[in-house]
Structures are given as C-alpha cells and as structure tokens.
C-alpha cells in the first residue's frame, strides 16, 4: 500500500474484509494503513540465508501489533507475509491463525472445500462444509 497504490487501496481491502467477516469481527491494528509496519517477510528477508534470527527480531514489532488486537485470525495479503506471520505466530507463541483473504472470501460465499482449509482453526474448519458436498 505504502509502496505503490496508497491508502485508497488499503480502504478497499478493509471494505472487502468487513464484507466477508462482518464489521463487528474486524479489528484494525495500530498503527495502520500507510503508518503500518512491514511484517519482515518482504524484500527477500525470508530467503536471506543466515539472517533468520534477525528476521524474527524484525517481525516482533508486527507480532506485538497483532497480539495487541486480541484477534484470533490474522489476514495476510501475500505469500511472503503469510509465511512470515505464520512463523511469528508459532515462534512467539501467539498461536493466532494466519489466513489468505481468498480463504475467507470463499468461506463466506459457502464454497470453501474440505481440502482448502489448511489455515483455518478448529472453530471454522467445519463451517459451511455441508453445503458444498453431495
């Protein structure tokens, strides 16, 4: 967002997220939008052999932000973020779920298949399954 498209796109992402999970279930982290912090997965950091410890230290800022929301799910917009935040969740023991937005869109539309639920927690892994099977 900060790098290219600006806050307008960040607002569109929030519109989609709120439409999918319900306004009352959305918690923004602080700070947010263009003031937000990078998770530390970008710029090649995840692939930077020999810098794993530094990467996690960098990511602690993001982990603390996520923990402060008290949310049980964190939505990540790209693969690097997903891998990094997933790792932070386990490494720092927060154990919040880390999901792609497409998972929640498909779930909310009642069309998320059984094998497509790898990153959902126990509370949602059965949700709506009946409607998509024979």
């Amino acid at each position: 967002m900060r790098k290219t498209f600006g806050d307008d796109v960040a607002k569109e992402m929030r519109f989609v997220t709120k439409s999918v999970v319900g306004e009352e279930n959305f918690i923004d982290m602080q700070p947010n939008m263009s003031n937000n912090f990078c998770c530390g997965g970008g710029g090649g950091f995840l692939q930077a052999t020999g810098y794993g410890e530094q990467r996690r230290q960098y990511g602690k800022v993001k982990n603390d932000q996520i923990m402060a929301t008290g949310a049980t799910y964190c939505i990540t917009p790209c693969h690097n973020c997903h891998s990094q935040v997933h790792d932070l969740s386990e490494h720092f023991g927060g154990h919040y779920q880390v999901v792609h937005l497409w998972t929640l869109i498909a779930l909310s539309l009642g069309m998320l298949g059984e094998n497509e639920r790898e990153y959902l927690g126990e509370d949602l892994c059965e949700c709506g399954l009946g409607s998509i099977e024979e």
Partner: protein
Amino acid sequence: MAEAALKIGGGPRQTTFMDKVMEVLPEGGNLNLCLTCGACSSGCPATGLEGMDPRKFLRMAALGLDEEITKTGWVWCCTQCRRCVHACPMNIDIPRLVYNCRAAWPREERPKGIRGSCDAALNTEGNSAMGANSEDFQFVVEDVLEEVREDQPQFKDMQVPINKHGAMYFLNQNSREPVTEPDEMVPLWKILHTAGADWTYGTIGWAAENYCMFLSDDEAWEKIVRAKAKAVDDLGCEYWLNTE
C-alpha cells in the same frame, strides 16, 4: 544541492559511494538533505539489527564511510518497506541507498536463498523461483481441478484455462502453491469462476515471484519482467494480474 559538510579524512573532497548513488536516483533520492532528526530510525523495525539503523546508515554514507555501508549485513535486514521515507520530513530515500549497497556486494556473496531463487527463475521458462517446470505446473493444475470437479458438484463445470488466447486477464501464480500446497490454488479459481472472469494461466512466465529484485540484480530482474510481460502480450491478454 548542498555539499556534504564533512568527510572523514579531510583533504580534497572525494567522490563517495553516496555521491554515485545520488547520480542515478531521481532528485538524488534527497540523500544529502538529512536533518538527523531520527524519525526514520524510531519507526523502523530493522533498527538495532546488526548494530545499525536507517539514520546511522545514511549518516555513515554521508560521511563517506563507503567500506562500512557496502559491507554491513544490515542491507539484507532492511525490507525496503519505505516506512522511513513516509516518516521523513525531507522525503529521503534510504531504501534505494540500501538497494544500491546490496548491489555493491559480489553476487556470489549475496544471501544464498535469494540468489538461488533468482537463478531458478532465470533457468525455467515459467520464471519459477522454486524451479518448477511448466509441465509439472500444468499437470498439478489439471489434477487438482479434476478432483474438485468430481468432489464438489457445485464446481463440476469450472474451467482453469491455460494459454487461452485473448483472455481478458493473464493471472500469475506463486510457485509455492503448485509446488507445496496445490489445494490453496482452488479458492481463487472459485472466486474467478463465480465472478465470471475471463482469465488464463500461461505456461510461459507464469510464476508471480521475482527475487532478482531483492538480489539487486537489475539485469536479471529486467530480463524476468520482460519475459513475463511478453508472455502476456503473446497471448493477447488485456490485463496482467500479479498476486504478489
């Protein structure tokens, strides 16, 4: 443009690494306008790593400590997230200085994982950083699709076009899914199917990732971007969708 006030060592002013970087950046990246306020460092998650922070890094560059700034491993800890630029009152582009310092490392000494990902992309027609070849990609896509069509009647007619000429959208795919968790491709297919989108994958330049940029290997980066753009043009697609 202001002259840097002080160079370590004194004597006649010599061209520093920062001077050279300024020549290639628009507005010189404003690199010589620093007020030393520290706003960049106070909001940078990489502050303190490798004993460095963005302000210190820039000050060292301004002082002509070329050896130090082109050798510190900190350049691999800055994710080039641009939060410092956003916060800086003088709009100073530290991440571009970082980018150029990465490029000053001998290629074979840059982090192996990033270099390997760039090289794998250069060596596959799909530009896959995981080295996945296009036949395997196509096979996995078709295999997963068949299973979804059989098991989920709601999607028995779903298509996942590959190399469809004239499709509206050419969609890139991160290698991670076909290689390690193919079922994760399905939700996106379903969304596109439900939205009635006219889209296609391609067997050329299909991979979404490009680590050559993170490696600061401009030539390789350009080569991959051009190969991918050409793949979109060759299929006559109107939009190139990159999910990264």
